[in-house]
């Protein structure tokens, strides 16, 4: 019971009573969470302000959109000011604007509460979270900051180049640039201005061979159309850690 008083929990589908108004619902939640009668009004209004529900306080929940319902769900989880908030997939089924709203709301809560966010949308995790734990089949595989996880992969960053000209000359030269581990000739596209090749360069983490690569290409008389840095996303890390299969260093 003591534990339950100290957590706020938002299941995947927000637990709402469709027949109640927003205010009635939050009053009910504050009652069953054991908030004293004198504090309820203040707490309910605080939660509604935090989640921007004030203008809909008397609307019946049945009539509100999914984004509002999600916000009511979060209001329900914070109304009794628990030290820990557990959110289970809070952005599922929302449109992109609502997703941004909900994410900002979650970020704004981070100062006062410890938030445990369960999600399979990995960009979301890398955007919002300070620490990421990857769990595969019930086992904790790793726990780290999103940046730390990226550093964990030895071959982390790389470049993608788009050049035109004679590629075969520069391939061995590129491999000799310090910091570069491998160069892959991916494919070529034909545009109006002629044949272009796409090269993928993998390099050691924390090395910055970009300017050397560019200089080399230009001095060899090739045309450089694009030079783009690629980073492994959390998806790559997740896949690498949860599957045994070797993974290509860059994702496209």
């Amino acid at each position, binding site marked *: *019971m*003591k534990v339950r*008083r100290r957590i706020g*929990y938002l*299941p995947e589908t927000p637990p709402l009573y469709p*027949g*109640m108004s927003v205010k009635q619902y939050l009053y009910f939640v504050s*009652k*069953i969470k054991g908030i004293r009668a004198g504090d309820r009004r203040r707490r309910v209004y605080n939660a509604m302000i935090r989640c921007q529900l004030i203008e809909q306080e008397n609307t019946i929940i049945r009539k509100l959109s999914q984004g509002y319902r999600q916000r009511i769900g979060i209001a329900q989880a914070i109304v009794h000011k628990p030290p820990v908030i557990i959110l289970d997939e809070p952005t599922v089924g929302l449109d992109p604007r609502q997703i941004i709203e909900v994410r900002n709301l979650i970020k704004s809560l981070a100062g006062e509460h410890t938030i445990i966010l369960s999600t399979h949308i990995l960009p979301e995790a890398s955007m919002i979270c300070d620490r990421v734990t990857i769990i595969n089949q019930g086992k904790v595989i790793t726990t780290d900051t999103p940046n730390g996880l990226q550093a964990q992969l030895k071959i982390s960053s790389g470049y993608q180049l788009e050049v035109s000209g004679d590629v075969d000359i520069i391939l061995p030269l590129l491999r000799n640039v310090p910091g570069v581990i491998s160069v892959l000739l991916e494919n070529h596209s034909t545009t109006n201005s002629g044949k272009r090749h796409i090269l993928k360069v993998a390099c050691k983490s924390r090395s910055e061979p970009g300017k050397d690569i560019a200089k080399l290409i230009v001095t060899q008389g090739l045309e450089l159309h694009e030079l783009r840095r690629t980073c492994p996303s959390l998806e790559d890390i997740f896949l690498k850690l949860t599957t045994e299969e070797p993974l290509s260093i860059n994702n496209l």
Partner: protein
Amino acid sequence: MIISNITAIAQKELQSYFVSPFAYVMAAFFWFISGLFFVEILIGKQGIIQQVFSREQMGVSIGSVDVATEFLNSYLAILGTLSLLIIPILSMGLYADEKKQGTLELLTTSPLSNWSVALGKLIAVTLLFVFLLLPSIFYQAIAFSAAVPSLPLAIPLLANVGLVLMAASLLSIGMFISSLTNSNILAAILTFCIILISWTVDLIANNVEGWLGDNLKYISMLDSYNNLVQGVANISDFSAFFSYIFLGIFLTSQSIELFRSNIH
């Protein structure tokens, strides 16, 4: 603390009945039927008053007939049968709706004990039943106030308390069944079956002699109800009803405990 939890749940339940058409539809149905039977039994062509009157006219000696008591018995028997039909519908959504909406997770992760949720829900739905009963109590009050010699107040009171107690027992069992499923219809059908079975227990009890029959009478709700309607107040009848109410609440909180351990 516990009291305020129970009242919070009960309040929420009662409110949910009256913001949806649910309570109004039930009330319209129950009030119409119970009013119809009231008129028919008391002053209809086959009614008690008419029967006594015609027999007296034909010169048949029927001794002294206490019309008021006769009426109470047959009217409360009808109300008991009507309850058989509406109780499954009242109890079906108690937990099934919460499961369907996902709100049971809110209740089970809040600092509430399972039994206080169950008790709050049972209180609310029993109050709804009493609300449905109000007009027929009002009709009875009119009828019995005109009875000569007057009927002691305790007798109809005991009969109606018996009806509410029986309803609460059946609602408690129905609540347990509702907690097993997230389908309202399934819960209603199962509850209806259980009520029918408990009715047949009474039938068997009346037909079986000796030890078995006596014991079946103790667990038969209908038998206890009939005793209370006839003005016989035994401790055993009250304790039978309260045992059923307790059993329902206990089983419900156990089944919710199971639900809780399954989701985690």
